[in-house]
């Protein structure tokens, strides 16, 4: 008998239009665009994206492109102890995009020995189960 889909065993974000109002983020990401919500009233550009502006409580938001390049502030290489479904090593990095927006992501498709604080990185689209996507980065080529 096939096991039904159990939501609490699925660590990845819900991305479909019937699940999240932020579904355009994931559609843009498939096209290689990194975006977030921008408040039409006060211009706040938060990360992660919202449906209400955390600074002025406006719900008049629009999608804004973020730079696809940034620098590693700090990183760590996790070698053991990852949750099931995640294979080591995983390189977690705090990335400052060129416009100052900061996000936590992973560095993939790169030589781990070449990863350094301050290194330039560029966006890649990471495929995760059930045809979903997440932003990730690699050392700039």
């Amino acid at each position, binding site marked *: 008998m096939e096991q039904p889909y159990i939501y609490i065993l699925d*660590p990845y974000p819900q991305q479909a239009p019937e699940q999240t109002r932020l579904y355009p983020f994931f559609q843009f990401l498939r096209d290689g665009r990194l975006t977030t919500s921008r408040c039409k009233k006060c211009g706040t550009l938060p990360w*992660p994206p919202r449906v209400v502006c955390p600074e002025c409580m406006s719900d008049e938001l629009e999608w804004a492109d973020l730079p696809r390049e940034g620098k590693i502030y700090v990183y760590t290489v*996790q070698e*053991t102890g990852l*949750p*099931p*479904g995640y294979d080591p090593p995983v390189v977690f990095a705090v990335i400052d995009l060129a416009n100052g927006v900061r996000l*936590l992501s992973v560095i993939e498709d790169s030589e781990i020995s070449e990863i350094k604080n301050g290194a330039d990185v560029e966006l890649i689209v990471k495929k*995760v189960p059930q045809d979903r996507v997440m932003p990730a980065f690699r050392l700039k080529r």
Partner: protein
Amino acid sequence: MRRVALIAAGLTRFGIRQATYRELIQEAGKAAFDSNKNVSPKDIEGFVLSSVFPERSAFQSHVACLAAESLGVRPRKLFGRVENMCGSGIVAIRTAYTAIVTGLADLVMVVGAEKMNVPVPTEAALNMITGLDRDWEGSYGLAAPPMFALSAQAHAAKYGTNEEQLSMVSVKNHNHSKNNPYAHFQKGSTMEQVMCSRMISTPLRLFHCSTMSDGAAAAIFASEERAKGLTDKPIFITGTAQAAHGYAVANFHRDLSHWPALKEAANDAYAMAGIGPDDIDFAELHDCFSIAEIIAYEELGFCEKGEGGKFIEQGLSDYGGKVVVNPRGGLIGCGHPLGATGVAHATEIFLQMRGEAGPRQVPGAKIALSHTNSGPGEHHILIFEKGF
């Protein structure tokens, strides 16, 4: 303002326990009632439970009523569960404190409990990512070890804090927990053992990390008036504060080696108690990872910013130093059943103030600080003073 006294406390052994969630609650509750024979379950007016994810690890929600029923408590003035990830225990105590200060209740029991270990150990790691920003960060597999490793990397880059200094925290706390029969780890450790243990997330090795332990702790608080009839050894909460500056790692303070939310909470708690960091005789600090204890020394004002590594190196956080940090062994020595940890701090403070801590007794302990974090951006503090 009405004063609030800690009048009873007890806990279970922490570790990989052959016991269920509700059995741990019963053990800890009994230990608390055994510590003060003047209080019985039927006297308890308020009941606050601290538990982080029993829905996942024990397949049980609606746990406050379960815990109360398990202990024969029928609360009628205050009742509920709190969940703030790893710092939940202090949040539960603050809830009890607030209820007593306002006069809502005179006698409130706090229980913290967590069943961390499940048959397949990696399931616990999956449970842990629910405590981070699951949609935007946890879904990369990010749990607590890499999150704190990022602070360690920032601290190393800015202040030169090194692996030896990180390891000294672990050796100190493992050596303290040798004297604690309730600790998960009671064999002590050497620098070599710590520095050769397997890498978890650079630069944090296995022995730099607290561990997944099952356990529970319980404490009973009373108004000053009610306490008079129940104990001649009250321990008063004289200061308490909290601060949160961010949930996602992306939204923590830009400099990850600085935890300004902790500094802010500490200063508020000191001001409320009318004391400063030099007045603290011993501290129960949230050493979920060794770097967390080092940064806490700095933000709590035990040393200058950036000097936390030297503070451990010079032995200033050990017996005979400036302030004894984590005499029970901390989270690294005792283990970290999430919801229980902050309440276990109160249990240690109860024993130390009464001079009942045995070989780990801090001589002349009169003022203690308890700190828990719920990640680098969120901190909770209590200050206790001996009232006898």
